[in-house]
């Protein structure tokens, strides 16, 4: 019984690792055979070595040695701050727009219009307004993450069938309490989708914000490495952002499941 379970689990883990392993093999093949020169695509061992130096090395050993902890902290603060602002505005505003026709008329067109503007267009304006540094990055992250969070909260609150409010009213739930007792739990699957999309986009815009010349952060390292021609460090940065982004996503889902019944129970 347990062996069979273990076999199934092993099979599933193997399946989920199949694509990354294939990509790694292809990468190996390309660099070992010399089809792609090292300055364009460093070999996996080189990147691994640079990565270890970047993460665990002592500062001073090399241009990037041991910088990881500081860069990670700087980037995490920016991402989480921007994401928190986006969620704090996006969820309430999305729900109000979904439930109240007046609010939707007031803000619907404006938000829809702003959403049509590519996030990168805000970069010059943000630089003028906030200068180079944390404020610009947080602004860009918050702006970009806001739209999916807002849109999904709006859709989720609209999808709640009136019968649930009637059931609530019949069971003694006031309109105000209904927001927390009925609307939010019912809309939770959509809200989670919005938050996850928002978290993903936060990392994308973090890099954009950090490309502008801030001294620290994962995006800054990538940009810095490009100017010094250190492709290996660029790859290290990309891989680290992928891993940390994925980790943040799982952490977000786990935290929501921990806090809300409506997030952890299947429907």
């Amino acid at each position, binding site marked *: 019984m347990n062996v069979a379970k273990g076999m199934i689990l092993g099979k599933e883990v193997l399946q989920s690792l199949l694509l990354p392993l294939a990509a790694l093999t292809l990468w190996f093949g390309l660099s070992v055979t010399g089809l792609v020169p090292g300055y364009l695509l460093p070999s996996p061992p080189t990147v691994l070595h640079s990565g270890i130096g970047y993460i665990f090395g002592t500062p001073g050993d090399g241009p990037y040695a041991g910088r990881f902890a500081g860069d990670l902290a700087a980037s995490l603060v920016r991402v989480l701050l921007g994401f928190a602002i986006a969620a704090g505005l996006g969820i309430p505003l999305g729900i109000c727009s979904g439930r109240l026709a007046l609010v939707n008329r007031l803000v619907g067109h404006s938000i829809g219009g702003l959403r049509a503007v590519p996030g990168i267009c805000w970069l010059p304006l943000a630089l003028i307004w906030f200068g180079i540094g944390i404020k610009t990055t947080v602004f860009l992250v918050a702006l970009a993450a806001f739209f999916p969070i807002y849109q999904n909260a709006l859709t989720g609150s609209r999808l709640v069938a009136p*019968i*649930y409010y*009637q*059931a609530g*009213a*019949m*069971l*003694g*739930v006031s309109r105000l309490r209904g927001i927390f*007792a*009925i609307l939010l*739990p*019912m809309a*939770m699957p959509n809200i989670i989708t919005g938050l996850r999309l928002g978290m993903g986009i936060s990392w994308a815009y973090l890099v954009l914000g950090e490309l502008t010349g801030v001294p620290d952060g994962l995006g800054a390292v990538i940009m810095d490495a490009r100017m010094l021609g250190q492709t290996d460090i660029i790859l290290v940065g990309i891989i680290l952002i992928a891993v940390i982004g994925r980790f943040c996503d799982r952490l977000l889902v786990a935290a929501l499941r921990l806090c809300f*019944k*409506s997030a952890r*129970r*299947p*429907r």
Partner: protein
Amino acid sequence: MTTTTHGEMVTANRPAILEITGLSHHFVHDGAIVPVLRELELTVRGGELVCLIGRSGCGKSTLLKIVAGFLAPTAGRCRLDGRPIQRPGPDRGVVFQEDALFPWLTVRENIGFGLSGRQWPRRQRQQEVDRILELVGLQNYGGYLPQALSGGMKQRVALARVLIRSPRLLLMDEPFGALDAQAREEMQELLLDLVRRRRQTILFVTHDVQEAVIIADRVLVLERDGGRIREELTIDLARPRDRSDRQFQACCSQLRQWLRT
């Protein structure tokens, strides 16, 4: 119909709980006024199980929504224990036709939901939930989520979450319409058991003539599209009622004929 020795006739002497007079309602659809109810009169007495039957679109669900307080009528009076009905209240409970359980709450939590406004100690609340769970025969399913339940069990929970609030009047809108024949009969028995034990007053909407004759003390037939009560039939048959009984079938054919014309 002949009077039996069962004692159902006693309800005729009880005071009225629900009194509806001159109730009219219309919807506005594409700028045109669509009348649904016209000067409808209706009384439900304490402990009575009244069935409302009619074809689809005759306004029976609208009537129930007005009594529940979900919908304000265009004109007329609707009183419960002498007080006008204006909004949903603790004196009325509704069992909907479709599944309206809260999907993120377990059976226990769904049933206890209606008690959350009351400042009861936790233990008392749990005991009350246990009592109601047993009443509807779900004592082994308290920890289940609605998605894991069959249609019949879901409607048991829907009934239980309303019963726990001890409403004066129970409103049921084709609650067993989506169930298979077996589950429907079980639910009808459960409902009758409830009426016997708790003397629960019920206004029950259905389009199933047999169901009406099985459970009702009195059946009201709504006009096809006139929006008022066309006929009324008191069912004096002893319980449990036998579907193959001649009188039972006579009641059914009488109602069917009224529904047709």
